[in-house]
């Protein structure tokens, strides 16, 4: 499976925060195919383990335990009420702006599809979740209830496609399925290593980095690497809002609002990139947190760093990333975690 096929497969899998079962099954199979021992913890995090492979692990000291994390949950829309004529009112799971989802096709776990619309006559400035609804193409509450219940969650059903020049991939949920793909690609190019490696696909990041908190506690690592998307500055009007852009390579995490990366981990990733002759950027993200927040504060503290994937249009149904950035990110991760 090539990168594009992998990203498409993952971004289409159903898995909003709290309901990650379907996407987890897809990832688990791929991790097992790559020889990892997988377990699912109480909150639903998928923890994929590879024991040390090199002879040095006969040394007396315990092998260094590394945790790598990308979140597998996505944004979602939860049904809160079904109107008499069968329209669905909903709330959000994660950070969604109403302007981004008008006219959007959505899909429920059971495959039911619908479209989001705003109350007739609503002006752009008045858009709010109160004025949005999902149309399932039914006309009665009883009919809608055959397909959807209050509490069910819809995900974006927008298409996933490659740009005309073949360089970019657009679709829902590049955040953070593109990084899940990056991690899976890294998992198949690992070198021999004396490190004890735990690749974790976390749950409920979009609603408060909840899975990472228990996964970090459970794995109890010596060092952690976080893989998430970051805003890019190569969009009109966004020049000063971010420190990196798409197409210029993966970005070494310096900080976000939840973690300031450990200088030694930052240096290690940058040195690895240099050794691999990979061009990298630096990511200083002033708004928004990642799984790195709870993981680096876990137990007695964990030196933490990471690789960010620059992304256009974060949290919209058309998130856009550069395919080469994903592939080079995977290369960087694979080498960095084996050599740490």
């Amino acid at each position, binding site marked *: 499976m090539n990168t594009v096929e992998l990203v498409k497969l993952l971004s289409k899998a159903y898995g909003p925060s709290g309901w990650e079962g379907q996407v987890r099954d897809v990832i688990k199979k791929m991790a097992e195919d790559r020889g990892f021992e997988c377990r699912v913890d109480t909150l639903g995090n998928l923890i994929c383990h590879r024991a040390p492979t090199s002879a040095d692990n006969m040394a007396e000291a315990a092998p260094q335990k590394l945790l790598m994390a990308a979140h597998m949950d996505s944004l979602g829309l939860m049904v809160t009420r079904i109107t008499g004529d069968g329209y669905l009112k909903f709330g959000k799971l994660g950070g969604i702006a109403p302007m981004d989802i008008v006219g959007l096709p959505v899909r429920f776990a059971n495959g039911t599809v619908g479209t989001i619309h705003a109350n007739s006559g609503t002006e752009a400035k008045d858009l709010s979740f109160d004025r949005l609804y999902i149309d399932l193409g039914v006309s009665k509450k009883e009919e809608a209830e055959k397909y959807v219940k209050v509490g069910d969650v819809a995900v974006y059903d927008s298409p996933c496609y490659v740009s005309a020049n073949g360089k970019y991939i657009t679709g829902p949920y590049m955040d953070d399925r593109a990084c899940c793909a990056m991690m899976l690609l890294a998992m198949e190019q690992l070198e021999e290593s004396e490190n004890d490696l735990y690749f974790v696909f976390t749950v409920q990041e979009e609603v408060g980095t909840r899975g990472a908190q228990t996964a970090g506690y459970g794995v109890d690592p010596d060092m952690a690497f976080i893989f998430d998307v970051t805003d890019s500055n190569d969009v009109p009007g966004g020049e*000063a809002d971010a*420190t990196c852009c798409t197409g210029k390579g993966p970005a070494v995490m*310096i*900080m976000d609002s*939840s973690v*300031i*990366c*450990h*200088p030694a981990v*930052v240096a290690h990733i940058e040195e690895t990139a240099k050794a691999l002759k990979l061009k990298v*950027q*630096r990511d*200083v993200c*002033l708004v928004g947190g990642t799984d790195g*927040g709870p993981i*680096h*504060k876990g*137990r*007695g*503290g*964990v*030196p933490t760093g990471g690789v960010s994937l620059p992304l256009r249009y974060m949290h919209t149904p058309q998130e856009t990333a550069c395919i080469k950035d994903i592939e080079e990110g995977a290369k960087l991760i694979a080498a960095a975690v084996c050599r740490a």
Partner: protein
Amino acid sequence: MNILDDLERLCTETAPSGFECNVSGLCAGILEPFVDEIYVDPMYNVVGIRRCGRENARKLMICAHIDEIGLIVTGHEEGFLRFGQLGGVDQRMLPGREVTVLSKKRHFGVIGAAAPHGASPESMNKSIPMKDLRIDVGLSQKRAEREIPVGTPVSFRSPFFELGKDCVCSKSLDDRACFLAVCRAAELLKDRQLHWDVYFVGTISEEVGLRGATMTSFAIDPDVCIASDVCQAWTPDCKPTDYISKLGEGPRMPIGANVAPAVAHGITAAAAEKRIPVQITVSPSRTGTDAWAVQTQREGIATAVLSLPLRYMHTPQEVINLRDLELLGELMAEFALEPGEEVRTCLNI
């Protein structure tokens, strides 16, 4: 220890949140003569331990944070640096400030803004948003990009000096002054018999979310923790209704949900015994200090906060009274020696 000298060394060192590696060694060096064991953990938290000699001893943690607020470089614009904040920086005080850019080869910088000539009358009464300000390092774009990469931390640069009688003015008194009070407590406890093991801790990254306190309190697993931090002291522009502490009237202790009553009682009793004045204030919910993170760590930790009154918090010209600092150290030492009937009964010490 020499309070004034050590305070100057601590405050003039540069260590914004997340970049404490510059100051951890210095902190450990000041604390080391007064403790049995000392270490800097992998996150640069500083921990010194006095053992009481009992098996399975109870544990008291006394902490203050060692990070300072600062800035971080986010981009380059014709040689000028764009920046974001590390911790709660007051944008009103930014124009005209001097900074040290903590690149491999350090650079001095100034934060400038367009001259007032020709500015509209309305804009003269407004502060300039941080996102519109730049750091001037006097470099070309090419050199700035090469020598000061994105992600470089920046520290405020201001002199340390004595102000009038008993006061000092400096950057980073929040919270290095309290860390020095923690060291002073350790010094006062040297060679004294203890009921419990006492952990003297310098925590990292308080200004960005009480992070080092979260880690160290898990690792140490104390029974009681006193977090020491600065609190706002009265200045003439405060409203008459603001009930806040005053410089020179002793340490402050808040009462509220973040403070275990038994510990507060013990501190009050220790203060009364030694005739140390304490300014009592009320903090109904979160105190905004390390105690907030420590309180809910593991199965819950009995916390209290002892504060050092400070004027002009989060500016490069913070002001404290050295007498308050000394009394704060004495009070923490006194509590460690005699935590009061309630705490002793509760912990069986």
